[in-house]
């Protein structure tokens, strides 16, 4: 019998909801079948904890006396440049921004020790950071310079706003060349020396709801240790890729744009990260509750690592040159054994996304729901799905001739 989100919320409030994690539902569906599982279980909690570059935060820092118009000027937090093309005292910091004087890759491979993701982690940890701003001065905003310490509690609003998180599946990265390469998928040793993957697999939110039947715009989620919302599909959301018989995409597909109050969040679930030779970013913890509204949704949520396939992609040539194709596919159960075979060679695997942290997030979200501290929300609009006719376009360059 089908349930509604409203009915599940009533059960949560009455302490009668049955909540299990995306790992626990696997055995339940196997033993009892999807129909019985959907009748007995109300919510399945998922989790993921991995680097997500399209992340950032915006702040309203409050007005100075006399006033300053940072909008159109420049602003840094701990020397990391912020975006200022907004109103007078609204600024945005992106996860991959780094200080102007960072040496980057001038001595290759660069270390990228500190960037926007690290600033966000420090702020969330309650630390003060140094804000420096320069403005051009107007009649109504005469001040031109500002140099102050600031922490989250000094700000009016501090909002995490991530245009693309939570990728539904991802590539397995390898290196076919004769030289070591440094990528956002980690260091890849030459001649298929190692293979790195980046997904929580059977715990990952969008892999448990492959057609976005419950996750939509307005879905309340665990975000960075606090609460947040799905606010749109993420950038590069691409539902129309090749899928398995179980509906699960066999490569990167759907994505989420999410936001939430940074002041509630925790540095355990928002961590600055540095990828040698590549850059810096933010590792984000996200957990999405899936209401088991019917048998079909229960069946999807019971997906296991061995049923989720990913494409093996060469990051020495195929990826950088935007050459389509893959060297084959493997499932996450194979990846997690520590070795896969590519072109006849057995090679060791490493993760970029933390499965153990993903499991903790799914457990924390389950505990919050059971403690009646987290209610499910009704999506206000669905995410584009397989019928949306989306094709991801490469940039159609129209070069401008120099005169």
């Amino acid at each position: 019998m089908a349930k509604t989100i409203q009915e599940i919320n009533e059960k949560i409030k009455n302490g009668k909801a049955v909540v299990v994690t995306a790992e626990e539902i696997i055995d339940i569906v196997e033993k009892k079948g999807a129909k019985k599982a959907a009748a007995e279980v109300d919510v399945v909690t998922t989790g993921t904890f991995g680097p997500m570059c399209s992340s950032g935060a915006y702040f309203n820092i409050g007005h100075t006396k006399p006033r300053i118009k940072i909008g159109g000027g420049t602003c840094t937090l701990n020397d990391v440049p912020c975006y200022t093309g907004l109103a007078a005292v609204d600024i945005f910091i992106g996860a991959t921004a780094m200080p102007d004087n960072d040496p980057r890759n001038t001595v290759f491979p660069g270390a990228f020790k500190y960037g926007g993701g690290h600033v966000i982690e420090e702020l969330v940890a309650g630390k003060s950071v140094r804000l420096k701003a320069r403005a051009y001065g107007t009649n109504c905003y005469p001040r031109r310079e500002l140099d102050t310490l600031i922490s989250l509690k000094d700000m009016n609003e501090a909002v995490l706003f991530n245009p693309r998180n939570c990728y539904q599946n991802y590539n397995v990265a390898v290196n076919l060349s004769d030289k070591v390469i440094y990528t956002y998928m980690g260091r890849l040793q030459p001649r298929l020396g190692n293979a790195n993957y980046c997904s929580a697999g059977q715990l990952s939110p969008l892999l448990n709801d492959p057609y976005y039947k419950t996750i939509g715009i307005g879905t309340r989620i665990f975000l960075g240790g606090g609460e947040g919302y799905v606010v749109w599909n993420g950038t590069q959301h691409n539902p129309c890729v090749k899928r398995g018989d179980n509906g699960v995409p066999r490569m990167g597909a759907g994505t989420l744009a999410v936001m939430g109050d940074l002041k509630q969040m925790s540095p355990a679930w928002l961590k600055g990260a540095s990828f040698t030779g590549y850059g810096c970013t933010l590792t984000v913890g996200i957990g999405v509750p899936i209401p088991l509204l019917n048998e079909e949704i229960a069946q999807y949520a019971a997906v296991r690592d061995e049923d989720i396939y990913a494409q093996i992609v060469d990051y020495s040539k195929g990826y950088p040159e935007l050459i389509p194709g893959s060297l084959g596919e493997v499932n996450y159960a194979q990846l997690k054994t520590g070795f896969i075979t590519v072109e006849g060679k057995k090679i060791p695997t490493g993760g970029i996304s933390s499965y153990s942290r993903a499991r903790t997030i799914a457990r924390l979200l389950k505990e919050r729901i059971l403690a009646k501290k987290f209610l499910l929300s009704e999506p206000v609009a669905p995410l584009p799905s397989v019928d949306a006719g989306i094709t991801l376009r490469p940039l159609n360059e129209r070069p401008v001739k120099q005169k």
Partner: protein
Amino acid sequence: MQKKRVVLTFPPSLVGQPITYHLVKDYDLMLNILRATVTPNEQGRLVLELTGLRKQLEDGIAYLKALGVEVQPLAQDIRWHEDKCTHCTACIPACPTQAMALDRTVMEVSFHKERCIACELCISVCPFRALEVLI
């Protein structure tokens, strides 16, 4: 016979001398070079596994120290900061000796000092800088 793993730091003045030769010839030690580097300012760093009789090991190390070579036991060279580790497992394929180990039932990383040869391959692959070389 005893085994000892050591990290030797050579000042620039000694980089040109055949010191390991003397360890073999004069102290009858077996050497396995685990790692060797000469930094841009010409300081040398050598990670060695020494095998020999206890007395000869002690005398060999005393000889190195007398020359001005800094001798450190190897295991203390790399430190794993558990509080910074997120168990992403990026270090696992990088480690040649399974000193960084993964319990696959819970997908959690642990560090086993006794297996570490301080090759430092893990240092730059950790996105959270949870591995540190102590010099």
